[in-house]
């Protein structure tokens, strides 16, 4: 029985009839049935309540006739009871369910990246022009055996190091949560650029094994798609413990997204929900993790470095130290801005810590323990620009994972409705009508361009700092200065305040 | 190599193109009995309506002949073919030697014996000259009787109506264009014509004609009805112009010239194409295709002509009809799929036999008609998509994927 909706629509779809040519592209492209056409009256109209502001119609409209407006808050201004809270309460009053959302934390927590500034050379040392001089971004991931001697190491339990040509990798997004087209775009771009993509927890589709050499193959608590061939095909194996968007929470891919090819890849029946438990049920302690790390290494004859991915949580430094000592070659830390295909809103918005602080703490801790060289540190969670990347590396990361940025490059407008499977942009959907909107050829090009642009910017920033190799930036916090940060924050980040000398 | 093409219509012109695909050197001569460069004969009704002007009549521009080095002899009739000497004799005594010869002489109107019929009191509707002569007579307010409600008669009707002439159609069969239209479609079209002020007498024909004192014609029909008219057009079919080959050794002539699969006649080096060919529907696409293939074969290609079922597009007074194959079929052995909307004058009928398309008739909704033609010509089994055939969005995607994939890859 339809009940009275207590909330007006969040968005208004406004069509300029002077411009509209009634080509109906908007109607055909709207993933959420907000755009409608009445053939009898030859009339286009919108169901505002359905609109999620994904901007697909706006982008596709050849006449530029569409604008989507955010409606004014449906209430008196109230700093405490914000519109978001009101909408959530009403939704829950109607459904009695847990609030679900997609993508990353969108709340106004302090963005530390925006409180950090970079250095540049003036007079006393020359800045370096990346267009004239070699500028090196190649980064090796894995455990570094020291000391180096002329002779090659005889240690057969050492996993090889993995080079990436830019310190940027594509973070885990599983096939199933994203479309084959999106997945393939990532794989192709990673291969073309010489970096790695991450399969996420849904396995690697058979037809994409040609990209496996550029894949971080994930092993998560659901063990979807994990088999010996998969582990041995990938370049790096990653044990996923946690995810920045939902620390402490498992995954749930609804049955509608488990189409036949997804089911085959995940090795589960078609149409069944894919549930990832919150913990790995074979890892209840750090020594269990060690066992899994070495199980995977044994299974791959020590040919694959093993990464362990955790959410950035309060005790992240100590946890990371334990992971390093448990034999991981790479530690990936996912900050609280990290994205997701589906997470409970309360978890997404209220659990975890910023990646900037986490990476600083972990890097410092590992150095204090003298084991920083044992692992590579990969930072993830909300990297928006090459400057964010540079700052993370200066704080101590070896490389970063980006995912939300890649989706935006592919068309995502952060409508946060990934969990519905209706993505108008063909990304977070398994509906072939929608997913075919993302031509992997174009997707791969766009991702390649993004990497190219960011990499070039990183080179320019490095050159400005007077260095020509990314390793000279790693942990080089002297090139960072804080602005408007308090003493505790400065201390945790290990940076001086802007205005302080070297 | 000497190529001589007798007849100057689409078959000859396409033969020129066909020859030149293989032979850029040989000399080509076209002999035309008419005084015009080739034109599409169906254009004459448009000319009469003044929808086409003189300068738009030629089928190909002058450059076509220049570019292809074609000598065109206009206004001359080939009167004799000497297979021994390999020469064609023209009516002016000129003798053209040939190595390859194409007979593309088309047909001439069939005029039945009718009492009182003289060369002066009737018109045919085949040639440019026919309509040039008719033009002076076809003035508003006059009345015309057209014998034959086939494509030619209907186009003559249209052009005369457009010129303000009141038209009466007399048709021996029980409906308009009986080979193409089934009774239901015939009735639909008949109604349409009557709504447009055209008189129609079916199951009837002319028995006599007489010029009255006022110069008008008094036409007597078999039914006893008498009609007065200013113009009489006879449009009941054509007869192939086979005279040039008649009696020559090796040549078989039935209704038209019998040709082999490569369009050669029994005479070495002599080919035929178009309406003159026996068994060929007197339709323009067929003539053009045959002309092209005959030309190629004259130049040595060795291509086979697969006889094509008839297909035709006919429009008059804003009504458009496309027919193909067995479009009028009604019998038990056929499965008929139809869509009828009399108010919109829409009629669509597909004739299936053994789950293959055998004919199609489309009136006023003719989009994608060529796909049906292709299905029909190729004899493609339609069982798996039969229910798609008349859907409004019928198209390539209605066909099995292997077919449309292949089609799109062309």
């Amino acid at each position, binding site marked *: 029985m339809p009940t009275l909706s207590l909330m007006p629509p969040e968005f208004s779809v406004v069509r300029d009839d002077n411009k509209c040519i009634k080509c109906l592209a908007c109607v055909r492209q709207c993933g959420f049935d907000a755009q409608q056409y009445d053939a009898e009256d030859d009339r286009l109209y919108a169901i505002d309540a359905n609109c999620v502001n994904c901007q697909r119609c706006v982008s596709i409209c050849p006449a530029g006739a569409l604008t989507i407006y955010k409606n004014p808050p449906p209430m008196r201004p109230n700093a405490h009871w914000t519109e978001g809270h009101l909408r959530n309460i009403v939704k829950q009053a109607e459904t009695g369910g847990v609030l679900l959302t997609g993508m990353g934390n969108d709340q106004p927590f302090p963005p530390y990246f925006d409180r950090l500034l970079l250095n540049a050379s003036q007079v006393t040392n020359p800045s370096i022009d990346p267009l004239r001089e070699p500028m090196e971004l190649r980064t090796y991931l894995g455990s570094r055996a020291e000391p180096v001697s002329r002779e090659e190491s005889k240690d057969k339990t050492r996993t090889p190091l993995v080079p990436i040509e830019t310190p940027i990798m594509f973070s885990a997004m599983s096939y199933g949560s994203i479309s084959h087209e999106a997945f393939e775009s990532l794989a192709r771009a990673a291969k073309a650029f010489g970096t790695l993509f991450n399969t996420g927890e849904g396995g690697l589709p058979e037809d994409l094994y040609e990209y496996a050499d550029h894949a971080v193959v994930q092993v998560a608590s659901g063990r979807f798609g994990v088999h010996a061939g998969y582990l041995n095909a990938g370049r790096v194996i990653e044990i996923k413990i946690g995810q920045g968007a939902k620390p402490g929470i498992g995954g749930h891919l609804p049955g509608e997204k488990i189409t036949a090819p997804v089911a085959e890849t995940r090795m589960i029946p078609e149409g069944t929900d894919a549930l990832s438990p919150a913990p790995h049920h074979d890892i209840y302690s750090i020594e269990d993790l060690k066992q899994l790390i070495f199980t995977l290494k044994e299974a791959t004859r020590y040919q694959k470095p093993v990464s362990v991915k955790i959410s950035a949580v309060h005790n992240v430094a100590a946890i990371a130290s334990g992971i390093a000592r448990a034999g991981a070659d790479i530690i990936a830390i996912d900050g609280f801005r990290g994205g997701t295909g589906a997470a409970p809103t309360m978890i997404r918005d209220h659990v975890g810590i910023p990646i900037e602080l986490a990476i600083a703490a972990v890097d410092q801790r590992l150095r204090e323990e003298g084991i920083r060289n044992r692992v590579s540190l990969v930072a993830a969670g909300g990297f928006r620009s090459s400057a964010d990347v540079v700052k993370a590396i200066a704080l101590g990361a070896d490389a970063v994972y980006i995912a939300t940025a890649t989706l935006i490059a592919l068309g995502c407008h952060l409508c946060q409705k990934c969990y519905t499977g209706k993505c108008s942009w*063909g990304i977070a959907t398994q*509906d072939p009508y929608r997913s*075919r909107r993302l031509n992997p050829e174009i997707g791969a090009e766009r991702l390649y361009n993004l990497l190219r642009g960011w990499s070039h910017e990183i080179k320019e920033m490095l050159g400005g700092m007077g260095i020509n190799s990314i390793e000279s930036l790693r942990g080089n916090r002297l090139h960072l200065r804080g602005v408007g940060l308090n003493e505790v924050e400065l201390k945790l980040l290990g940076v001086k305040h802007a205005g302080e000398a070297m | 190599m000497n190529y001589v093409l007798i007849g100057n219509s689409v078959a000859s012109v396409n033969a020129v193109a066909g020859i030149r695909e293989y032979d850029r050197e040989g000399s080509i001569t076209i002999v035309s009995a008419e005084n015009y460069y080739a034109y599409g004969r169906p254009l004459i009704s448009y000319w009469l309506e003044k929808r086409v002007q003189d300068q738009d009549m030629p089928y190909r521009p002058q450059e076509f002949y220049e570019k292809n080095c074609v000598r065109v002899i206009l206004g001359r009739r080939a009167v004799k073919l000497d297979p021994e000497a390999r020469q064609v004799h023209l009516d002016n005594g000129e003798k053209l030697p040939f190595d390859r010869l194409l007979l593309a002489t088309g047909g001439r109107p069939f005029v039945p014996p009718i009492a009182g019929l003289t060369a002066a009191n009737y018109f045919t509707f085949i040639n440019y000259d026919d309509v040039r002569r008719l033009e002076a007579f076809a003035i508003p307010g006059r009345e015309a009787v057209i014998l034959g409600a086939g494509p030619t008669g209907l186009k003559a009707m249209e052009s005369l109506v457009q010129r303000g002439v009141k038209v009466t159609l007399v048709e021996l069969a029980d409906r308009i264009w009986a080979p193409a239209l089934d009774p239901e479609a015939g009735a639909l079209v008949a109604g349409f014509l009557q709504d447009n002020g055209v008189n129609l007498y079916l199951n009837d024909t002319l028995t006599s004609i007489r010029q009255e004192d006022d110069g008008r014609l008094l036409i007597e029909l078999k039914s006893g009805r008498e009609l007065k008219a200013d113009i009489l057009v006879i449009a009941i079919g054509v007869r192939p112009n086979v005279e040039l080959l008649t009696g020559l050794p090796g040549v078989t002539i039935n209704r038209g010239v019998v040709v082999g699969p490569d369009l050669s006649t029994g005479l070495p080096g002599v080919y035929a194409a178009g309406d003159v060919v026996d068994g060929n529907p007197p339709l323009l696409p067929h003539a053009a295709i045959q002309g092209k293939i005959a030309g190629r074969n004259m130049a040595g290609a060795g291509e086979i002509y697969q006889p094509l079922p008839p297909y035709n597009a006919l429009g008059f007074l804003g009504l458009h009809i*496309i027919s193909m194959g067995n479009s009028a079929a009604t019998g038990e052995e056929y499965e008929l799929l139809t869509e009828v909307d009399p108010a919109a004058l829409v009629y669509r009928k597909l004739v299936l036999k053994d789950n293959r398309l055998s004919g199609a008739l489309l009136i006023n909704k003719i989009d994608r008609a*060529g796909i049906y033609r292709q299905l029909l010509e190729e004899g493609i089994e339609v069982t798996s998509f039969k229910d798609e055939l008349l859907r409004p969005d019928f198209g*390539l995607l209605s066909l099995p994927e292997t077919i449309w994939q292949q*089609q799109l890859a*062309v």
Partner: protein
Amino acid sequence: MKKVYARPAYCMNCHLCEVNCIVAHSRSRDLFRAYKRENLRGTARVIVEERLPLSVAVQCRHCDDPRCVAGCISGAMVKDSETGIVYCQEDKCVGCWTCVAGCPYGAIRPGEKNGRPVPLKCDLCREAGEPACVAGCPNRALVFEERRAGA
């Protein structure tokens, strides 16, 4: 010859090829004028067929032996011997639609422009270089390329 090829796997059914085609074949070459003043809606020379999720833009294949050219009573429809493009000299067309009956792809639709008949068929934007449908396809579902040597 270079032709437009559809890649159905990437066709997302936006029909923008039709829009771009219409604009490219309008007098004004302007979207708004084409639709609002010239009233060209529905006159695209490319047809997006839909069997969702599948859709595909169908257009003239510029056949080697084009039926539309063979059947043209006025000589308006021609195949350019240099470029291979099959196109209609529109001022010669009388609207008999034999071409419609001839095209095996159903890629010619009867149309009208300024009271004159116009067969709506792709001419590969022969005056513009790259076909507008290809240039404007947001998902590269249409490509303009040579696939067959010598054709």
